[in-house]
């Protein structure tokens, strides 16, 4: 189980780096969907003892919402906005990937010093969760398109999910439901914003919002 969990963690980090290096938005959405499926599997693999209804529900909610529902919503947004790629992010793709690696190293350092209530199943859980959160933040601040930023929110939430199932299992469902609701609202609002920005400017570049002078 430990080897399986570690493999899933490595795959999760891989999807993070892939997101940082991708410019095509449909491929980014697919990667986020893969990340959602990975999260559900991580929840199952990180669970100690026999599976019960609760862990199955958490995993199913993870896969269903993050792996299927959100990507479908975002894909609709993509179609509505008629764009295909993130044209010129504030931070380029190679520096983004390097920043992702730096985030991973930083997370390893933080995880070694972070006081935790119990010992996690695998010592990779905390670093991976922190990396995913940092990558999410990075995507939010460094990308221009509203859709990429919505993806950043999702990735950030995925990090919290991993942290929840790996470390704070007892309270995870509570935290998880709250955050999931927030993200749902976030994605929903983003969808509306995207629609409005694209109708107003024929593009979903958020930098246009700063030029609303007159």
């Amino acid at each position, binding site marked *: 189980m430990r080897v399986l969990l570690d*493999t899933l963690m490595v795959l999760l980090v891989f999807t993070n*780096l892939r997101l940082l*290096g991708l410019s095509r938005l449909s491929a980014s959405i697919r990667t986020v969907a893969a990340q959602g499926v990975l999260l559900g599997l991580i929840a199952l693999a990180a669970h100690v003892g026999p599976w019960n209804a609760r862990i199955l529900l958490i995993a199913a909610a993870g896969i269903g919402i993050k792996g299927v529902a959100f990507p479908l919503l975002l894909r609709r947004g993509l179609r509505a906005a008629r764009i295909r790629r993130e044209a010129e992010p504030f931070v380029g793709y190679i520096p983004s*990937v*390097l920043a*992702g690696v730096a985030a991973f190293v930083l997370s*390893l350092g933080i995880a070694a010093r972070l006081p935790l209530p119990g010992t996690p199943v695998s010592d990779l859980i905390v670093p991976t969760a922190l990396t995913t959160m940092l990558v999410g933040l990075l995507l939010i601040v460094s990308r221009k398109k509203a859709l990429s930023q919505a993806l950043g929110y999702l990735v950030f939430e995925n990090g919290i999910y991993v942290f929840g199932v790996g470390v704070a299992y007892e309270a995870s469902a509570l935290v998880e439901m709250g955050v999931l609701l927030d993200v749902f609202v976030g994605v929903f609002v983003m969808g509306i914003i995207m629609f409005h920005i694209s109708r107003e400017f024929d593009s979903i570049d958020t930098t246009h919002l700063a030029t609303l002078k007159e």
Partner: protein
Amino acid sequence: MSVWGFPTLAGSLVLAPLFLGIVNRTKAAFGGRSGQPLLQVYFDLAKLIRKGAVYSRTSTWVFSAAPAASLAAALSALLLLPLAGFPAVLSFPGDLLLFTFVLATSRFLTIVAALDVGSSLEGMGASREAAFSALAEPVLLLGLAVAAREAGRDSLAGIIGNVTAADWQRAGPAFVLVAASLFAILLAENARIPVDDPNTHLELTMIHEVMILDHSGPDLALLLCGSVLKLWVMAALLAGLLLPGRTGFPVLDGLMFLAGMFALAVAIGIVESTIARLRLDRVPQFLVGAGAFAVMALALIMR
């Protein structure tokens, strides 16, 4: 120096062209063709050796010496590499630095020969090769450094073929990352598809092929032999890093190694058939990604 390395060395020389044959057959199978015979590379070599060579008037001795020297460099790399549970012919502490140096020398000689012809097309290929290998080489060294750190030894003999199931339990993620990184470097260094297409002769995209355009006959045979051996060496390095160590039965070790190499050849063929060639300006990004994996593996090992 170990005499036990010579049988595997001879075996490598015999089998290396077959490795490329398996890659080509896999690609053909994916394309729905029956493909060239498995032994086609041997036929090509035999054909080229019987031909005569043509030398441009502008070329100097560098051009005619480079193919032999490049093959010699690939052979030296093979001397340093322990294969299939047998010791390497030469082994000393720090030989992994010599290993990367020798591979770099082989590339340097090909580049110099390409520049020596005086053709601008070959100069372009040489500049591309130099630019990409400058990125690939540190990643190879970094990957070897991770493996050395993990094994606690600084020679290839200590790193290769000493992996146990317990190591996989302890440092599995780092192994996976290093393997992914070295596989990417294998593809890049041997002019395989996401970086360079071995079949193309389109001047916009080719890298390795353009450098050897003016070589003919025996010279081309030596270059082909050198590149085939380099592919074999890099694949053997990867197989040696990943496969568990010696079982105690030499035959079993040999069979396991051959099975690993066969799997790698098929994997290269699959990658080449399913992934499109990267645009030239995306190649550095591919190599940086490989480097990112190696750095993360290093961070995992060092913590």
